């Protein structure tokens, strides 16, 4: 019997190793898997490379992971925000490496990794600082920049409902990076509001098929 349900967030993240590349879902706080991040902080893995759209808001979730000093590098599109004081201080102190990537390129690099694409040419960023040093190509009269895929060891994502095979549906704009990060990591761990029996999710409406998900954790024990 396939059973991807883990009893606790702590158990689900227990094998995240030092130096791992970890994708974390969410756009700001929408879709951020806070329970899994808290478990990762408690677990203690360090020297992590984190992939997220932002670099933490306020003092909780991803910001707390940064504040705990566990992150060596972050790959993101929009670190600087009104409430990104934790990242800002680390960056200014030279204590964190930043790989800045345009948001659509970030999404497509994750998608490419999950789809087995070795990279792609995109018009986004051509002629800008963020394309310096990258291969370019003129295709049908338009300029493109080569971007490489982003693979991860783990993805921590948040969904609304999941079953023991790992099928997931999301809630509103909290979906954001979840479906693509699920495809791009060796081990994808989904925090869900509700674990449901097999067959309860409408197969026409499943957003992430279970093949992309290795572990499912209910965020609040029933």
């Amino acid at each position, binding site marked *: 019997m396939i059973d991807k349900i883990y009893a606790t967030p702590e158990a689900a993240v227990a094998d995240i190793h030092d130096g791992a590349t970890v994708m974390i879902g969410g*756009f*700001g*706080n*929408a*879709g951020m898997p806070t329970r899994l991040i808290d478990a990762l902080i408690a677990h203690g893995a360090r020297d992590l490379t984190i992939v997220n*759209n932002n670099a933490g808001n306020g003092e909780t979730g991803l910001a707390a992971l940064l504040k705990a000093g566990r992150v060596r590098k972050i790959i993101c*599109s*929009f*670190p*600087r*925000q009104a409430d990104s004081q934790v*990242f*800002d201080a680390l*960056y*200014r102190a030279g204590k964190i490496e*930043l790989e*800045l*990537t*345009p*948001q*659509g*390129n*970030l*999404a*497509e690099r*994750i*998608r490419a990794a999950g789809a087995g694409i070795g990279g792609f040419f*995109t*018009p*986004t*960023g*051509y*002629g*800008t*600082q*963020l394309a310096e040093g990258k291969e370019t190509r003129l295709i049908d009269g338009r*300029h493109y920049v080569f971007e490489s895929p982003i693979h991860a060891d783990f993805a921590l994502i948040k969904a609304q409902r999941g079953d023991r095979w790992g099928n997931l549906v*999301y*809630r*509103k*704009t*909290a*979906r*954001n*990076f*979840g*479906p*693509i990060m699920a495809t791009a990591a060796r081990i994808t761990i989904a925090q869900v509001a509700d674990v449901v029996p097999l067959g309860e999710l409408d197969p026409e409406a499943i*957003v992430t098929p279970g093949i992309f998900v290795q572990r499912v954790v209910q965020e609040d024990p029933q």
Partner: protein
Amino acid sequence: MTPFTREQIAARVAADIPEGAYVNLGIGAPTLVANYLPRDREILLHSENGLLGMGPAPAPGEEDGDLINAGKQPVTLLAGGAFFHHADAFAMMRGGHLDICVLGAFQVSSKGDLANWSTGAPGAIPAVGGAMDLALGARQVFIITDHNTKTGEPKIVEQCTYPLTAVACVSRIFTDLAVIDVTPDGLVVREMADGLTFDALQARTGAVLKQQLTQGA
């Protein structure tokens, strides 16, 4: 001379958005355009964090942290709206499916180059978000900007001095002084604020302008 107000600029942009258009309104001044979209036109707003058919802000107390726009503000979804993941959201832009993006600017060049993500100031923490994707992400890119900076420097220039967001991407510029098209023949002034002369406008602009006013303007 009476400059256009922010509300007048937003209403002017909205008047250029046709029935059936798929539109992304950038963060900041462009967001104001939503308030002036003609009610007799069905126009679908896209937000790059993953929704199409975005509605107005919710009533107080009705906010949902899982239903936000690209500025991370609470919004609503119209009947017929849809949610999708980030790669799809940007495929809608990069793939040329959106009709219009409305963005702000630090500088626009005479060739339609846009600088709106970084001033390049030393020590600043860089953050690009969707700016570079948005600038290339629609058939037409409209810019809303003050004509000059607070210190009087022109924001429409021959060559951008700030780091570029995208090359040759801007279609039309709406400022507090004028509506200007970026054309293969250069910058063409279509409308001007009441009481403003073309020479006065040119004097406040860092690039050569041509005058070809729209009828009735």
